[in-house]
């Protein structure tokens, strides 16, 4: 059993409060991603769970064990928590070769020589480092060092794996490959994974559940990746999930108006938010349908950037700029590409309403 139970945890460094009354549960066997901007305290939370820091307040339990108690400042040492940790900077020991790095946890656990060798080699194969066992870390690429770190964290078969931005230093291809492998490992070995990152793509790709954290260390939403993508609870979460368009809207006389007074025409089911307050309407570039002039809401192309398979347009909508991306090939076949200055029309597939005052947080 490796559930993680974080209750009302607070952590300060000097006068700076990093975490305040934070609670979180990671279920046994799930892959939970903590997603937030850099400096939001997500690494601190991971270090608290690993036992490298002591909480000022609150408690942390792993499985049945209470591992840290802020009120008594007592903790169970990191080496007695039975974890695997992969660090952002790999932390592969430079004086040990690949084999020695991976074997170290088993040596500490006094695993018999025969079994140790077998398990190390199994893990070496698992992460695809076969034939590199004798190499020193300095002779490995970043991606290979990453795998050593992962193998080292896995070899002792911990019930809980803590990963701190383990993919952020890899190139795009390797990153994709590794995140797939991490997901496979988790399914095959049944470990609980707590993954900390600022990269929403990785989070969406591998997580069973995602927690979105803001700069102040508050968790805004915890849900499945699909839920978060489709139903963000607030503008911060929405903005954090990729490029977005946000428009200022005011409600007047049962109508939603853009800044220059153009009514927002695409409201389908009439669920108009409260009158009198300012609102934001949010939608993703992919929710924008670019139509020939005369259809939808009239607009014009401010800028067009050809990106290859996709073409990015900046459009004028009621005096505000919005972005969209369209498939170049489809456009060619449908209506031809737009040039800068061309008139066009806009339709929207989906929109989200957010109260306007939240903007400062985001």
């Amino acid at each position, binding site marked *: 059993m490796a559930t993680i139970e974080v209750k009302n945890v607070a952590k300060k460094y000097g006068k700076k409060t990093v975490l305040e009354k934070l609670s979180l549960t990671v279920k046994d066997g799930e892959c939970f991603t903590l997603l937030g901007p850099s400096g939001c305290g997500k690494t601190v939370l991971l270090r608290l769970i690993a036992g490298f820091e002591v909480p000022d307040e609150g408690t942390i339990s792993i499985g049945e064990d*209470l591992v840290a108690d802020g009120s008594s*400042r007592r903790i169970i*040492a990191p*080496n007695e928590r039975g974890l695997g940790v992969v660090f952002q900077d790999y932390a592969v020991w430079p004086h040990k070769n690949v084999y020695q790095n991976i074997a170290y946890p088993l040596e*500490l656990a006094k695993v018999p020589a025969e079994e140790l060798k077998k398990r190390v080699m199994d893990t070496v194969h698992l992460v695809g480092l076969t034939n590199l066992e004798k190499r020193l870390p300095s002779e490995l690429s970043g991606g290979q060092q990453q795998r050593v*770190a992962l193998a080292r964290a896995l070899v002792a078969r911990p019930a809980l794996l803590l990963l701190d931005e383990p993919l952020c230093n890899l190139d795009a291809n390797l990153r994709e490959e590794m995140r797939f492998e991490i997901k496979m490992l988790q399914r095959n070995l049944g470990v609980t994974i707590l993954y900390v990152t600022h990269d929403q793509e990785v989070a969406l790709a591998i997580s069973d559940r995602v927690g979105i954290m803001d700069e102040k260390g508050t968790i805004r939403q915890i849900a499945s990746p699909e839920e978060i993508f489709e139903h963000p609870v607030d503008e911060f979460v929405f903005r954090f999930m990729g490029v977005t368009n946000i428009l200022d809207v005011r409600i007047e006389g049962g109508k939603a108006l853009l800044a220059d007074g153009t009514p927002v025409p695409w409201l389908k089911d009439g669920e108009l938010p409260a009158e009198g307050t300012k609102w934001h309407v949010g939608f993703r570039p992919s929710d924008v349908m670019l139509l020939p002039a005369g259809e939808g809401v009239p607009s014009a192309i401010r800028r067009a950037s050809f990106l290859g398979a996709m073409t990015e347009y900046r459009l004028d909508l009621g005096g505000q700029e919005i972005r969209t991306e369209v498939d170049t090939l489809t456009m060619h076949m449908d209506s031809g590409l737009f040039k800068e200055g061309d008139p066009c029309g806009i339709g929207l597939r989906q929109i989200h309403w957010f109260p306007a005052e939240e903007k400062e947080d985001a």
Partner: protein
Amino acid sequence: MPVMKRRSFGVPEMLLFLSVAILVIVVAVPVLLILYTSFFVDGHFNAGQVMSILSEPDIYEALLNSLFIASGTCIMSTFIGTLFAWLVVRTDLPYKGFMKTLFLVPFMLPSFIGAIAWKMLLSPRSGYINILLMDLFNLEEPVFDIYGYGGIMAIETMYLFPFVFIQVCGALERMDPTLEESARISGASLLTITRKITLPLMAPSIMSGALLIVLYSMAHFGTVAVLGMENGIFNIPVLIYEKIHQSAGSFDSIRAGTVMAAVLIVSAAFIIWLQNKVLSRGRYQIIAGKSFRPMEVKLRGLRIPLFIFCLAYIGFTIVLPTVTIFLVGGLSTYGVDITWENLSLDNYKFILFEWDLTRDAIWNSVSLGLGAAVITMFAGVMISYVIVKMQVRGKGILEFLGMLPFSVPGSVIALGVILAWSGKFGINLYNTVWIILVSYIARYMAFSLKANSAALEQVHDSLVEAARACGAGMGQALKDIVLPLVRPGMFAAFFLIFLPAMRELTVSIMLYAPTTRTIGVAIYTLNEDGETVLSAALAGIALIIIVTGQSVIKYFQNRKAG
């Protein structure tokens, strides 16, 4: 279920306490005792008495001499150091890399041995060069007189200029070449660029090297002691030595000594403060931390003459005195012509195998060097570890104490150690070998802290945390991860202490007893007693030990790099 532990208790606090205790006992107490003894009379603060001591004629003269010699040495070293650094880094001088190594050789040669060698070459009555010139040109009067301010400054310059050289080399190598290139594009000539761009940018590094030289020269004992006696020239460290040596423990001379030591402490602190200020102000964008390929100045017609000049300088300042030492060490009596018939290995044999005095000296130096190196190395690792790696309350005190060893000159340490370990606190080590050991530890702690901190900075915290997460306890993680990684730093610290300790003079000369001479003391006293050839032979042996040690370090460093 594993036991929950309180994290706020235990090991970190203990290590901090130990580290502070070591630095307080070894460095802080001696320094404080000096300041206390010099400013307090019968328990009362008395600045008037300090002033009257400072205005005593001999002390006043020593102060002036220290300042004068330090200024002269500083100006000459700065000029030579900057010139050679520029030649080696920024011009197309032949064999630049090799020349750079050669210019650093004086670092490892003890300057008082150099002074003895130059005395043999340039003393007015019997210096070999003087005699040679007088014979050649039928002169009545000797051409050179080494026994003056000029001689002292010249010899100190030969051995101290690498401090400027190394600083300026480093800065020139790290300087962003685009700064010069853009001046060039704007139409400035190379000379203008050097004068208007390069030199001003280098100024902080040059200044900082120059300040170091003032610091070392003011506190320098050997050269002045060897060359100044003849004409009655002495500086602060020499006068401290004489006061203590001749006082037989009289309190007045000890007080006079402490007042002068206090002057050294204050000026050292001031110089270090000034140096930090200069360096921090100078850290503008020139130092990018990356290696550039700076543009080279073509020397054209001057290339070969300058090359020959550099070679001549090296030959004259390094090779000539070294050869002289070995040759004179082979003579039966000082003064006879250097011919094959007059040369033998008898002196070397006598010193190494027959004479108790020199054998004891070598044994003392080797054992003191080893002892000090081992103790200081381990203490340095611990203190650096607390400073660099640990989060523990009260670390600020330790950081301050850790700075102290860097700024306390040797004669100050010796005097402070005498005050602290002569029974004042119930332990009397005076006239034993232990008092020298204690003072070596204080003197070389700075080297150990520097080398070990540098090594520890390289060991990222996550390496230890990774080991903890793998199941290692703190002690286990230190043993398996930190120790193997800082071993090169410890190794460096060991040799950085052992080698200088082998030739130490300033501290040992104030603390030695008849049975506790060190190599440095033996060379110096033999030379003073007129046993020139034996002194030279012992100096030769010291040089062999030092050069061998340096080669061992170089070998290991290269192996590590390659």
